[in-house]
């Protein structure tokens, strides 16, 4: 998932006594793992939270094309170029399924797009970091898609049917993305001195932004508590981050690369690694729009949308003319 700090109702989770009969019946279905479908009754807060979360995820897929698109024209072999194209195409496709899932909740793709372009809605902080050398294509697949999978696998069981089904499709493709990323890293780490330097540089820059993808610790967040109760969210941010670190450290060791964290150490007692937290000040700066690429990313999306207006208008006008001609002929 590429959603962070998704706001819920802003209130605590209601106790059974506080719920209306409809709300209680709804919560019973969630607790019994029965999927909620678009036409079912749902609390307004559930609907709004899902729109925020699915919308943010969809926007992340769309903006996420840009850092990888940055290297498609410089991919070093035909095969790498083809793989990267296939991956970016998948991402645009993920955006499409997710917008469709959001549409079942009564919000149109155009409305969500307007919210992205105006900056009212966010996308994942990770895509506000630059891709500076070819190994970044490896690091993005390995770490960024790796972190996304960590979040998305449990979301296949999320309570809202269309979202869960979209996740099942997306997860299949994401695991291919992660493997191709790791494959790039492997080539680079086993390559020339210059390639090793690129690989380590990419890891150094991507590590902490990847840890930020899970969002800040949510142990005190009312939003997270409500999302967990509604099974919009399945695990806490800290659980997922720990799982990600535990999975990734041996992979980095296998590559012969060094994770840029002096405090990284196996902890027998907890059965996981101790590790440094990312710089949360930096995270909040990025979320507020001050990341290295925020302005450029949003400008690129706005330009694509504005420059494309005549195309959308033209095709719409043609469809209308054709329909009118058909009616006239009948």
């Amino acid at each position: 998932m590429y959603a962070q700090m998704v706001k819920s109702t802003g209130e605590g989770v209601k106790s059974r006594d506080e719920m209306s009969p409809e709300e209680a019946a709804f919560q019973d279905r969630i607790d019994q793992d029965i999927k909620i479908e678009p036409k079912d009754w749902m609390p307004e807060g559930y609907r709004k939270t899902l729109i925020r979360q699915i919308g943010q995820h969809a926007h992340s897929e769309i903006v996420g094309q840009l850092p990888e698109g940055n290297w498609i024209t410089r991919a070093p072999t035909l095969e790498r170029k083809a793989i990267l194209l296939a991956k970016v195409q998948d991402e645009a496709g993920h955006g499409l399924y997710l917008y469709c899932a959001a549409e079942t909740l009564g919000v149109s793709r155009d409305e969500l797009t307007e919210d992205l372009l105006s900056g009212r809605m966010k996308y994942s902080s990770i895509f506000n970091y630059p891709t500076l050398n070819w190994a970044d294509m490896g690091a993005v697949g390995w770490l960024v898609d790796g972190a996304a999978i960590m979040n998305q696998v449990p979301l296949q069981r999320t309570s809202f049917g269309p979202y869960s089904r979209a996740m099942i499709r997306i997860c299949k493709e994401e695991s291919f993305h992660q493997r191709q990323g790791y494959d790039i890293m492997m080539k680079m780490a086993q390559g020339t001195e210059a390639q090793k330097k690129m690989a380590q540089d990419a890891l150094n820059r991507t590590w902490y932004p990847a840890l930020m993808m899970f969002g800040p610790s949510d142990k005190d967040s009312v939003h997270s508590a409500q999302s967990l109760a509604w099974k919009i969210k399945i695990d806490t941010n800290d659980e997922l981050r720990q799982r990600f670190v535990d999975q990734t450290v041996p992979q980095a060791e296998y590559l012969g690369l060094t994770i840029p964290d002096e405090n990284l150490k196996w902890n027998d007692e907890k059965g996981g690694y101790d590790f440094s937290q990312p710089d949360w000040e930096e995270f909040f700066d990025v979320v507020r729009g001050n990341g290295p690429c925020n302005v450029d990313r949003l400008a690129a999306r706005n330009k694509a949308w504005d420059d494309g207006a005549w195309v959308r208008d033209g095709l719409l006008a043609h469809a209308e003319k054709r329909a009118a001609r058909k009616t006239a002929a009948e």
Partner: protein
Amino acid sequence: MSALFEFCLRMGDNTLVLGHRVSEWCGHAPVLEEDIALANTALDLIGQTQLWLGLAAEVQGEGKSADDLAFLRDAWDFRNALLCELPNGDFGQTLMRQYLFDEWHCMMLNALRSSTEKRVSDIADKAIKEASYHLERSRDTVIGLGDGTTESHARMQAALDYLYPYVGELFVADGHDEAATKAGIAPDLASLRDGYDAALSATMAAAMLTIPDDKFAHKGGRTGRMHTEHLGHMLTQMQWLQRAYPGASW
């Protein structure tokens, strides 16, 4: 060099250079469906490049790979039609360029299915499925935008006016083409022209667009005699990693 080698380069350089151009759109298309379609088109073209340049390298017999041919030749060794290397311009120009190429590409691939060279007919059999889809989409889009709003019509007419002088090169044979035709590898290029013109007229009529009267044709890409200034810039980007770090494996 053999006629087969030259022929494979001409096919493979067309798809490489056009595939690269289309890939420049990534993330910047007017609507999400177009981002997907453009990436898909670029992906197909790059896949076909692997086949054509792979066969070229095999025929050449110097132990080179498709990647060596794509990333380590300079502009004067490229054999793509000039049409393929022209800049994307706006979305209309990109789709018009695609349509003008796709119409030729499908006719060519269809003819190549009966090539006497089995390795060529095998590639054509595979590529025609993809190219037919590209043609269906580019034709529909050209018609849709030509017969859309006043603005979209004007932009499509401008795109056609700009690109049409690059169409003729696709049908002009030189000694290598004649040798390939004689060997039964490829059709006579001039024989494709009537069918192409008929298809173009039908599409442009549906799109309410006017085909320029002047049949002047820019040439020099397929023979390598003179490319446009645009190709060199594309190669600086495409070939940069291979050139900056020679011998590395990616």
